[in-house]
């Protein structure tokens, strides 16, 4: 399964590119720039998956102290922030021609940038919090509090003014996904990005385990050197 992940990701990604750029018809109101939607929305889904995975793995880590859960939470946060960054980059590229501005304080935009900041601060804590063994526990507390904050952010940003299209939930903005290929394009590109994210998470978890193994070997080596001397 692990060996299959990279070639499978590549294949699905090629299929997503082919569907989005060759098959899906151009949206009637917005034109060519609307095609970024298939990567923008799919990235947002993957980012959310990543953030919920952080919380789940954090809860498991606090419960049983499993080092794999700790590494998984860290890797999921990294990949979540990466895809959240992609959402924040692809969004303005679309917004500039459609809304006339790169950024506006619409509820969904505010929510995305706040989520990005929460998990970026999680990565800061991991990177600069020092080598303390308790750091994993602190990060797990932040991972759980972060996911508890998500519903509050969702409700509170509704108090702000909004203009973001909601084609999937409320059929608002644009002409909607009228062509069935539009839905196929979105699902296939979501699948491609989920596979890519899973591959990244797997690589980072294995990398973190190797880091720990190297550190343990180094400690053992130092101890043996001490004995000889």
């Amino acid at each position, binding site marked *: 399964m692990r060996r299959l992940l990279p070639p499978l990701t590549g294949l699905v990604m090629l299929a997503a590119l082919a569907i989005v750029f060759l098959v899906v018809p151009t949206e009637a109101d917005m034109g060519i720039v609307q095609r970024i939607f298939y990567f923008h929305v799919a990235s947002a889904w993957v980012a959310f998956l990543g953030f919920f995975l952080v919380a789940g793995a954090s809860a498991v880590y*606090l419960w049983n102290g499993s080092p794999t859960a700790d590494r998984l939470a860290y890797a999921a946060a990294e990949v979540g922030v990466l895809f959240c960054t992609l959402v924040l980059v692809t969004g303005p590229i679309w917004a500039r021609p459609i809304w006339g501005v790169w950024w506006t304080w619409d509820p969904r935009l505010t929510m995305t940038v706040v989520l990005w900041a929460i998990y970026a601060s999680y990565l800061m804590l991991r990177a600069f919090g020092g080598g*303390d063994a308790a750091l994993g526990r602190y990060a797990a507390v932040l991972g759980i509090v972060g996911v508890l904050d998500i519903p509050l952010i969702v409700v509170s940003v509704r108090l702000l003014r909004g203009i973001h299209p909601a084609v999937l939930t409320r059929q608002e903005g644009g002409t909607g996904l009228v062509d069935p290929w539009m839905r196929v394009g979105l699902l296939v590109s979501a699948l491609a990005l989920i596979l890519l994210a899973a591959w990244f998470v797997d690589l980072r978890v294995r990398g973190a385990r190797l880091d720990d193994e190297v550190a343990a070997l180094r400690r053992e080596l130092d101890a043996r050197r001490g004995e000889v001397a």
Partner: protein
Amino acid sequence: MRDALAILAKDLRIEWRTREGISSVFVLGVLLLVVLTVAQDPSPETAPTLAPGVLWAAFVLTGLLAVQRGFLLERENDCLAGLLTAPVDPGAIYAGKLAANVVLLAVMQTVVVPLTGLFLHLDLIPRLPALLLVCLLGNVGFASLATLFGALATRVRAREVMLPLLLLPLLVPLLIGAVEATRAVLVGGLAGASGGLGVLAAFDVIFAVAGWLLFAYVVRD
């Protein structure tokens, strides 16, 4: 419960004997009000509309410092370690610390809120009961998260920058709720403020419970 009250009494006694925290927080709160108002150079007509944002931005930034200072005091001479060796439930330590922070922030609010009214031409007296409710809910929500992360941030490296870095993004829903509720209260009383008050109340309950449950994982060694 009794343990939490003992910790509250201890923290307030320390504060009362030095008055160092409260006086620095007072001055900082006033300073931030001045800086945030001057930076926007309001005309007399637009000044009242700035009040909610200025008030809560000053509250959050001052509160960060107040809470951080409280936990740095506990670090001196390893006071927190001593507290943890006492047969006290970590949840009770959290509750006591939370109550102490709420009291400290409430004292700060009694100065900052009237001054906001004075600086930005607001008649607060008829709005006072509703405004007190918003201030209290905002205070408790802020203190719930700040107490948990204050304990956390003082235990890691780069602690000065870590507390605002971790806390500010998590506080955004509280800030939006408090600003929207304050704005509604100032123009028309509690009726229009239900959205903001709902967010504040939910924030308070969720993070007071989460803080109480998670505090043990932060302080245990």
